[in-house]
């Protein structure tokens, strides 16, 4: 995996985390239906899973390995968090906590990208 490919995956992951965060704020304001929220979060989790798979299958150069490991960890965490959020749709407190954790994942992904 080249530096550009890794950066592209990180940009997609950061976008996905931001997308999830924006939507959770919308859902927390009670503006989404349950079916839409559950479905949308599942699609985002699917997308996150695809990026995670791409990162798992990639073989980086030695210089890129630390960033790749960090990226894999954060993208896996994002996938898990999106699944947790799906289960927490009926509980605003849990959903809010999930939103905060997703924002932290986003910050960590941004740091990984800037270190490239």
């Amino acid at each position: 995996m080249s530096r550009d490919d890794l950066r592209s995956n990180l940009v997609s992951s950061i976008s996905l985390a931001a997308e999830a965060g924006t939507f959770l704020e919308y859902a927390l304001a009670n503006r989404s239906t349950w079916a839409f929220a559950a479905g949308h979060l599942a699609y985002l989790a699917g997308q996150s899973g695809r990026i995670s798979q791409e990162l798992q299958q990639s073989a980086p150069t030695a210089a890129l390995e630390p960033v790749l490991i960090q990226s894999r960890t954060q993208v896996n965490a994002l996938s898990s968090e999106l699944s947790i959020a799906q289960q927490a749709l009926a509980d605003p407190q849990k959903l809010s906590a999930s939103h905060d954790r997703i924002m932290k994942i986003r910050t960590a992904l941004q740091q990984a990208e800037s270190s490239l």
Partner: protein
Amino acid sequence: MKRLLGLTLGIMTALGGFVDLGQIVFTTQAGALFGYSLLWAIVLGTIAIIVYMEMCGRIAVVAHEPVFSIVRTCLGLRLGIVTLVASNLLNLITCAAELGGIAIIFHLLTGWPEKLLLVLATVALAAVVFLCRFQWIERVFGLSGLLMIVFAVSAVVLHPQWNQLAQGLVPIFRPSAPRQGLLYAFFAVGIFSAMLMEYEVHFYSSGAIEEDWKAKDLAENFMVASFGSLLGSLLTVALLILGALVFLPRHIFPAVLSTSIFVGAYPFAQKALIIALFGTLACIAGAAIETTLSGAYNLCQFFNWTWGKNLPPRSAPIYTATWVGLLAIALGLALTGLRPLELVNISIIFGMAIMPLTYYPILRVAADKNVMGKHANSKFVTIIGIFFLVIITVAALAAIPLMILTHSGRP
């Protein structure tokens, strides 16, 4: 009232044509990446489709020739068959993507399993096409597509900077890196292509013959083509604005259809979200029907076989079998698990690559006084037609290289 209902052919053609699955996601992505700076591509695409839609409607009325009949006459048998196969492959891929999109929307509305919904929705769509007359199909899908206006209302409520939006009419972009320039070009070509997808003119010209338009309807033809396209264009601009206002500041590149739908109701609550879902559903279902019927129109018109949605199926057996078969194969393709957005990305770029083969014959026949008599193009219309044909050809040549170089527009 009859005149108003007559507009529904233009509305359904344009909404199903360029506010389909691909355009909805593609345009919000363009707004998310480049703000308003690709507005010019929407304007260019709108003028181009109005010019060509009017021409093919006029040919249908005056020469009683639908698009694929003139494709064969102008391009000859060999190149004609290449165009027919490519166009119907494009219809198939697009139809599969749209069916996938319909299943996604029903899943977002009900929470039911997506594959079950995919099968149920395809069967329902087939029943509607089988049972309803052409006019009722266009009225139902054209008018229910108007629910998409919620996207335009959301865009206005979010207060776009109108002066910045106006600057987007000028095609100037200063890329920070070469890759940015390529991405910009990819999205410009993609937006332009999505607005001119071949099946729009195939459907529109066949629809004019289905509705038995006469020479006295020619003034209406221009109105129908313009009104439908302007409405579709307005909604496309709204999608660009929403991408620029909601996604760009948050560094979001919308990767799934549901993100592009929820942004259509972003300033509002649940009811607006449901309206956005139904509006999108109507447009995507309209696109699925357009591609399905276009496939059957193309084949029968090319080989001069009996065709017509309003004919009893027994009178047009090949036509009926073709659209039913196309829908069934598209369902099979969608059931393989291929993602609708991947399919639609391919169809937009592939559609651009073969576009000159559809638009050149239309221009040639519309300008031919031997065929069109006093209704042939004026010099002005021919010059505009040539101008857009040159742009279409340049974009066609650039489409596939841009897709490869940008990994299908991945930022």
